[in-house]
């Protein structure tokens, strides 16, 4: 399993090692270049000095350098290894330290000498510089210029003779010196870099995980907290106070989801409790009816069976409604919108309610715009209107009037259902749409079990219709169903 911490640690260490390594190499290289440049400069200076002391003479070339250096008494570094060559490659002068070994003949120009590393005759590492120049008379002192070259093997300086100035001679000079100091310096640097690099890496190896632990602690805390959640302890909300910026939105969202889950669970529990409660009494009725009939078999069995049947039907109806309600609340119902003629639907529903209305002598007054159309789901709308109208017909006092009106209002469709409700008080209004709520808490006989209006409300929400109830001073209750737009498709709203 991937671990952020491990990944971070490895990446950080890797990158760090890389940077450290790269930096060290850069430092080393630049120092190396600098040191070499310094050495080369020195070599060049020495070479030029020697060149200046090379003149054309009787024997090709007069080389005053050794004598001059001796008399100078150690001012500046005395080059130990040098060799002067004629244009044809013959060796003119050779430093004593060289012995019989010759230096390689590599030349650059005076301005751009050739430099190379070599092994000195005494075995030490060295660096050589090679230039080709014209040995000149000192009359033109700036640079050693070419005069007639004549070379000699010995390093004795030739005496000046009163002759006409000789021609400049082309000469090659190779000068070498040890580079021990440079090497030592570089090695030292390398060691320092390696040592400090290693130490740094080690320290990082120790510190980085610790720092990561500390920084990732809130994440761990969050993870632990989440681990402890279970269905029965949804109360533990996450503290948003000390959360780092990255985790704060997560904590906030978790809190939000948890509270919604809790509400949902509570609703479920309440639902189960309500359901059990609702079903108990009809079941008790069934049980006792059957038990009494069995106990006294000579009694009125037909009546007992009728009662049983009625109870079974009542329970079935309750179950269906509860199920429909649960489905509606969970948005498990697909909504298919089509143009629906609302008035026709109302008429149809009213027809089915006619027997009950007649029984209770309820009069209906329907004032509907016949042509009004609504883009909605016909099945759900039927469910909504059935419950709404049935509620009115059943709870309106006997011999009263139920008024149903359908009007168009600024582009929206408004339906009202109004009936006398002498029992209702203002404080009952918020409860009207609650599940299992009935004005008279105990009416177990009704088929609706207090679910009719709750169902209507759920359907309304699914259809994006607004369903409200108001109490008029005249003692009537008025349900108002309003749609926002007529005859146009609306996007199916997401239920949270």
């Amino acid at each position, binding site marked *: 399993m991937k671990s952020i911490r491990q990944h971070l640690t490895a990446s950080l260490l890797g990158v760090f090692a890389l940077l450290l390594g790269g930096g060290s190499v850069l430092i080393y290289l630049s120092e190396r270049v600098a040191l070499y440049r310094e050495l080369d400069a020195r070599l060049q200076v020495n070479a030029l000095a020697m060149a200046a002391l090379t003149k054309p003479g009787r024997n090709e070339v007069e080389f005053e350098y050794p004598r001059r250096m001796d008399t100078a008494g150690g001012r500046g570094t005395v080059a130990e290894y040098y060799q002067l060559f004629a244009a044809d490659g013959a060796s003119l002068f050779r430093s004593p330290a060289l012995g019989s070994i010759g230096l390689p003949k590599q030349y650059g120009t005076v301005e751009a000498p050739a430099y190379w590393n070599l092994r000195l005759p005494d075995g030490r590492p060295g660096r050589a510089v090679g230039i080709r120049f014209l040995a000149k008379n000192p009359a033109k002192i700036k640079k050693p210029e070419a005069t007639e070259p004549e070379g000699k093997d010995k390093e004795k300086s030739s005496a000046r003779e009163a002759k006409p100035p000789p021609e400049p001679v082309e000469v090659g000079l190779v000068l070498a010196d040890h580079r021990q100091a440079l090497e030592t310096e570089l090695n030292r640097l390398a060691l320092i870099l390696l040592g400090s690099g290693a130490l740094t890496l080690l320290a990082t190896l120790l510190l980085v995980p610790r720092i990561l632990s500390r920084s990732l602690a809130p994440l761990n805390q969050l993870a632990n907290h989440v681990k402890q959640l279970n269905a029965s302890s949804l109360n533990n909300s996450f503290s948003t106070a000390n959360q780092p910026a990255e985790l704060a939105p997560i904590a906030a969202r978790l809190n939000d989801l948890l509270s919604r889950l809790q509400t949902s669970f509570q609703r479920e529990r309440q639902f189960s409790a309500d359901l059990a409660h609702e079903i*108990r009494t009809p*079941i*008790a009725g069934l*049980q006792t009816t059957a038990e009494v009939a069995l*106990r006294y078999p000579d009694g009125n069995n037909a009546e007992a069976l009728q009662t049983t049947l009625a109870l079974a039907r009542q329970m079935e109806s309750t179950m269906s409604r509860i199920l429909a309600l649960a489905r509606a609340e969970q948005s498990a119902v697909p909504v298919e919108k089509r143009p629906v003629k609302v008035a026709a639907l109302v008429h149809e529903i009213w027809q089915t309610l006619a027997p009950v209305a007649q029984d209770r002598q309820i009069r209906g007054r329907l004032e509907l715009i016949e042509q009004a159309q609504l883009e909605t789901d016909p099945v759900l709308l039927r469910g909504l209107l059935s419950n709404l109208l049935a509620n009115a017909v059943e709870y309106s006092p006997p011999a009263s009037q139920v008024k149903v009106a359908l009007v168009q209002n600024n582009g929206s469709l408004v339906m009202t259902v109004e009936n006398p409700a002498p029992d209702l008080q203002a404080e009952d209004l918020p409860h009207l749409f609650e599940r299992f709520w009935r004005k008279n*808490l105990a009416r*177990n*006989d009704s088929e609706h079990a207090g679910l009719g209006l709750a169902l209507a409300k759920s359907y309304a929400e699914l259809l994006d219709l607004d369903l409200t109830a108001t109490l008029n001073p005249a003692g009537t209750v008025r349900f108002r169903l309003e749609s926002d737009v007529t005859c146009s498709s609306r996007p199916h709203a997401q239920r949270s």
Partner: protein
Amino acid sequence: MKLLLVEDAKALRQAVATGLRRAGYAVDAACDGPEGQWLAESNDYDVIILDIMLPGVDGLTLLQRLRQQGRETHVLLLTAKDTVEDRVRGLQAGADDYLVKPFAFEELLARVQALCRRRYGQKSARITVENLAIDPAAKTVRRNGKVIELKPREYALLEYLALRQGEVVPRRDIEAHLYDDAADPMSNVVDSAICVLRRKLGPPQLIHTRHGHGYVLSPESL
């Protein structure tokens, strides 16, 4: 014994009333709180069977009112509310027993009988009067070990007199406790019932008449 049943669920109410009547009780049935209260205040019942969730006045309130009025009638709460809190609340409100729906009719019967016994201070199930043994559970009557067959009404009458054995029971009481509103009690009914009962029980006579006062069930005549 006379019972009051207050239950709003029609099917249940009718089934329970029928069953209890068949078992020999006189039963008055009410379908809501106010009616129940009125009946309870107007009559003297041996046991009141009371649903809690009632229209109008809920069962617990009704119970508290009756207790406040000083009525000691035994009350059995019959309800769908089944949690411990509900039971405790019910009993603390003054109920004598608590039965949760759905229930077995037999259990209801047994509990009602127990409460009736308590009414008359009868602890043990069996009632004995000299050589007469009455088993209320089995509804059997033996005299000298021999079983006596009685119709339910006759049995009820005998049981009632036996529970109040040694007491002179006015005819009024017998009417009140043995006949519900369904029957139409005329003075004759009680007398003829006593007559039949005496005949069935056989000599020596256990039920004695106190003219002008009532009847008494006791071993010897006073």
